[in-house]
């Protein structure tokens, strides 16, 4: 079973690499990040590193999310529309194995994307660091410090977050009939997950006046959608390592793993019933 999932994932990965879409988004994101470097001449002073990190992580977040919704949907519908899925599923390959293969293949592609962009951001930050530190010293303020471990942890968290998005896209794709529908609904689900923290905050705020229905709806929202905004702690991880509470990264990873298992289970169940 695992070997079949592995082989499907491998071919999925190869297919994605040989498509232009990935290269296009990767180049776009890299251009975006590199393009932000000259902007620092607007003199951010010792805020320069923060500016560069913000932009870099922003680009990673945005383009990564787009890729995580579009790529798995495209790979899934590509196989169904071209009827290659028929050939594969006539073999002793379970529907669940097929879908998991698609998941791991797409997720591996997003891993390449995330770690490549993180490396680029890291290089830019490290190159600029001595200069910025010197300027901060001259002004006698506490200089920022780039944490390589933090960069790595941030990449890991982003990768997990993108994995959740991939699984959501595959779940929607298993239920929907068209590629466009999958991309639209998938994007809306991601947007909702990105905004869940607002619902959480509102619920936690003792001063908020809420009707029971409203409270119930908000509560349900926070239960169904994962709080994806919670994974965007890049700036703190990388530039202010000391401010991150111990255990934050591991607890975020753990909750991501739980979400992944649940969503993938639902996706496999839905895909088993799908007509192809």
């Amino acid at each position: 079973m695992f070997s079949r999932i592995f082989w499907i994932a491998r071919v999925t990965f190869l297919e994605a690499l040989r498509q232009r879409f990935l290269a296009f988004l990767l180049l776009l994101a890299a251009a975006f990040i590199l393009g932000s470097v000259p902007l620092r001449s607007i003199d951010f002073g010792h805020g320069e590193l923060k500016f560069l990190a913000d932009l870099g992580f922003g680009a990673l977040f945005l383009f990564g999310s787009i890729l995580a919704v579009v790529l798995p949907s495209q790979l899934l519908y590509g196989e169904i529309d071209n009827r290659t899925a028929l050939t594969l599923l006539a073999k002793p390959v379970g529907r669940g194995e097929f879908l998991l293969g698609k998941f791991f293949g797409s997720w591996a592609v997003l891993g390449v994307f995330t770690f490549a962009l993180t490396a680029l951001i890291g290089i830019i930050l490290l190159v600029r660091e001595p200069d910025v530190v010197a300027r901060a010293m001259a002004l006698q303020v506490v200089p920022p410090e780039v944490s390589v471990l933090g960069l790595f942890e941030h990449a890991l968290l982003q990768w997990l977050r993108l994995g959740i998005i991939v699984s959501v896209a595959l779940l929607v794709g298993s239920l929907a009939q068209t590629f466009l529908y999958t991309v639209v609904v998938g994007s809306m689900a991601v947007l909702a997950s990105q905004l869940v923290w607002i619902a959480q905050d509102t619920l936690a705020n003792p001063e908020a006046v809420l009707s029971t229905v409203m409270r119930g709806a908000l509560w349900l929202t926070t239960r169904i959608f994962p709080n994806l905004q919670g994974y965007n702690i890049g700036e703190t991880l990388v530039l202010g390592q000391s401010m991150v509470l111990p255990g934050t990264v591991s607890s975020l990873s753990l909750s991501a793993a739980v979400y992944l298992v649940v969503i993938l289970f639902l996706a496999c169940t839905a895909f088993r019933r799908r007509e192809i």
Partner: protein
Amino acid sequence: MTDQPAISVRDLTKDFRVGLRGVKLRAVDNLTLSIPRGQVYGLLGPNGCGKSTTLKIVLGLVPATSGSFTLLGHDSASPEARARIGFLPEAPYFHRFLTGRELVRYCARLSGVAADRVDAATDEALELASMTEAGNRRVGTYSKGMLQRIGLAQAVVHDPELIVLDEPTAGVDPVGSAAIGKMIQAMRQRGKTIVLCSHLLGQVEQVCDRIAVMDRGRLVLEGHIDEVLAQRGVHQISVEGLTPAARQAAEEALSRHGAHVLKVDPPRQTLEDLFRRLVTGSRD
């Protein structure tokens, strides 16, 4: 175990819902069929009569509306049954970005060929489909005939007992079709069961042991090819140098024995035979 049919279908019905209002379209209508082992079985019928749908249901790719069926004596969903069959879907389309060889290896692995056998099995299958040379090119660059042949290679790479071919000759030139016919016969000699859907009736007549004809989802004829085609009480004689006098003498001689001639005309060779003698074969 082996006396169970390769495929058995009982009272199978399939309705598709089409359009927004969900109008029912009956693709397969109360079909009962039993395909014995070790034979080449032809499934014939006009476009849209439900051949492909029947095969897809039996292979567990499409759910049936009602009825029951088994595959090599097992439930179609069971991996044991599906590991022992090879399927070439109609109008096959494979991962364009893989080379033919990579594709066949991939299929070998998914079909459970042991890791140390994968290379040998891939080579054999490519050889059988005469795709050894073209195996190093991307599938996206293949001609229709090559696509069908690589489809055959991926269907037989794990040495299955039952091979289901849905229109393996669609879009293939007569020389290529004849080669596919030979492949089918070779596999039959190795004791395989082959189910063949095809519109090339001439070829079906040559390679099939039994045939079933479907029309609008129903079975209209089933039987051994010789039995269904035999025109009882009629015989053909081929004669060279038939002069009018000779013809008259022959007719008289025959009528003395109570036989009479129905028609006399020169036999025509088939266009296919002519074509095959004229051309050497495709460039692939």
